[in-house]
């Protein structure tokens, strides 16, 4: 077994752009769930909206910044549409509406009638829309190798994307930390605990829930943009499984913590890579082929996560004392 290669693959996952993308989307979900108690089951919908907004805008020849703003604006509109009818109701309704809305976005995006805009089933291939992001690259052209890892400097799955992606992760961690420890975050936590109590103290609960939904959704959209940049914008790559991965890694790291989503994302993808790589080397392809190994490793990781959530439901970084309190 080639441990150097396996280890390089695993450690490479720690700082891959996809890991960063999931971390950002999970930071957004953490604002929803960890801070406000909103059950958003459609974070992938926000991601897809953001990715479409960015890709379509940049394909039309606009800059990466414009693309980002369009993606953000689209996610804000989406959040408003979802929030207006549901945020006055109890939490479960938001869960139903968000999962349905995310599916609607995906199904409309991949439908043949939308091919002119979204590329339909095939999606938007990388070559076109990535140019705007490459144009922002401050590194010289070419490839660079650092230790075991060789990537292009600017193009697609690049060092530049890693730098920008992880800077964004750091920035959003800082943002969430600042907000969590502010009076604004305190109101959100109060809403998470009991919104009627917060109402009785003279706060406009609806408005705060809407702000939370928009902020978390916008972070989801940015996550979606980073998710699409090393690959392509394809509706089915941001479907229900994506939402559940985001949830899984948030709970793994610890909801309502600042670094929980980041740690969760790094661990989930690295462990998955470790299991996959080891199995590929150990199990002969006559027993399990590559595709089956892919599925099997998800099963193993899923099982581990179930155990983790059962025995440590507050996640890795969660506060045990907080959990000891039986909520309702």
């Amino acid at each position, binding site marked *: 077994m080639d441990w150097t290669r396996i280890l390089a693959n695993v450690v490479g996952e720690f700082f891959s752009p996809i890991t960063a993308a999931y971390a950002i989307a999970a930071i957004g979900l953490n604002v929803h769930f960890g801070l406000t108690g909103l059950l958003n089951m459609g974070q992938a919908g926000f991601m897809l909206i953001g990715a479409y907004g960015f890709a379509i805008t940049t394909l039309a020849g606009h800059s990466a910044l414009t693309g980002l703003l369009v993606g953000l604006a689209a996610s804000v509109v989406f959040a408003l549409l979802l929030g207006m009818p549901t945020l006055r109701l109890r939490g479960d309704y938001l869960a139903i509406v968000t999962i349905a809305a995310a599916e609607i976005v995906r199904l409309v995006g991949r439908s043949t009638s939308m091919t002119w805009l979204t590329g339909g089933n095939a999606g938007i291939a990388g070559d076109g829309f990535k140019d705007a992001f490459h144009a922002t690259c401050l590194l010289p052209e070419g490839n660079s190798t650092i230790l075991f890892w060789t990537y292009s400097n600017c193009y697609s799955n690049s060092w530049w994307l890693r730098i920008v992606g992880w800077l964004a992760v750091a920035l959003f961690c800082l*943002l969430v930390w*600042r*907000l969590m420890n*502010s*009076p*604004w*975050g*305190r*109101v959100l*936590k*109060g809403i*998470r*605990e*009991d919104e*009627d*109590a*917060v*109402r*009785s*103290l*003279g*706060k*406009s*609960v609806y408005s705060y829930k809407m*702000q939370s939904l928009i*902020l978390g959704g916008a972070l989801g959209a940015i996550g979606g943009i980073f998710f699409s940049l090393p690959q392509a914008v394809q509706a089915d790559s941001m479907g229900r499984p994506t939402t559940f991965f985001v949830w899984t890694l948030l709970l793994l790291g610890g909801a309502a913590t600042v670094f929980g989503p980041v740690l969760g994302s790094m661990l989930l993808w690295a462990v998955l890579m470790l299991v996959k790589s080891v199995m590929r080397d150990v199990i002969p392809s006559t027993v399990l082929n590559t595709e089956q190994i892919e599925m099997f490793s998800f099963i193993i990781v899923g099982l581990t996560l179930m155990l983790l959530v059962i025995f440590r439901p507050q996640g890795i970084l969660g506060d045990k*004392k*907080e959990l*000891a*309190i*039986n*909520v309702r």
Partner: protein
Amino acid sequence: MSADATHPSPSAAPFADVEHVPGAKKPDPILVADGVHRAFGGMVAVDVDHLEVQRGAITALIGPNGAGKTTLFNLLTGFDKPDRGAWSFDGKPLAGVAAGNVAKAGMVRTFQLTKALSRMTVIDNMRLGAPDQPGENLLAALVPPLWRGREAEITAQADALLERFKLDTKRQDFAGSLSGGQRKLLEMARALMNGPSMIMLDEPMAGVNPALTQSLLGHIQSLRDEGTTVLFVEHDMHMVRHISDWVVVMAEGRIVAEGPPGEVMRDQAVIDAYLGAHHDTDLGDDALLSDEVAERLEAEADAEQADRDAKHEGGGR
């Protein structure tokens, strides 16, 4: 009734000229409600023609279970919407106003089932109650200098209240780890952070131990003495008699009687609807357990029933 004699009466003075009838006019009402009606399906929960609550006094709202007391609370504070009706608080119409804005207007309530924010510390629970914190705005929250000053004021105010309510040792504990009685105290203290001109307490004594009851009563009275209007729902008649200046009795959604505590509790309608003939008897007295007493009470109940039946028949003819 000895409680009457010892009742501190300066606060009862405004009620000197008030008629002892349902819907009586008060000299200086802070809350005036008219024609408030709420039905759940065919069941009329609240049907209040007129109610005035005197400013700066302690008014008790009593009545049997299901009389509509809590529903009336919910309606007045914006947590439920009436089918019809209007009410004003401090001269401002409040019908149709959202709960958050009712609280902002100065009318703050507590809940029958305490709503402590469990996974927040006691001090954060308190801070949340304070109004006018600029840091509760999303953008201002990002710039601490904009809200640090106010936060320090709030914290000082919260600490003072916690001390007054003997919760200062629990400052950093999660509210979920407090006992039931302590949560009641915390909820009341939190409501006071808002500096309300009127506080509405839904069964403040339920589940509170006797020693704590005494101090809670003291708190409520001192609130009144500082000028806050208090309206509370309570089943504990000792407490009602002890601290309230005025009592409003509800039954089946309507107000059936009003008056000073001593008199209302002698009102035949109130005794029939709610209190029962022996409401003054100490149920903890072991003498009540003897067969002799039980037989006597039974005979009395039979006689009452017979009397009622006779009246009923008489009315029917």
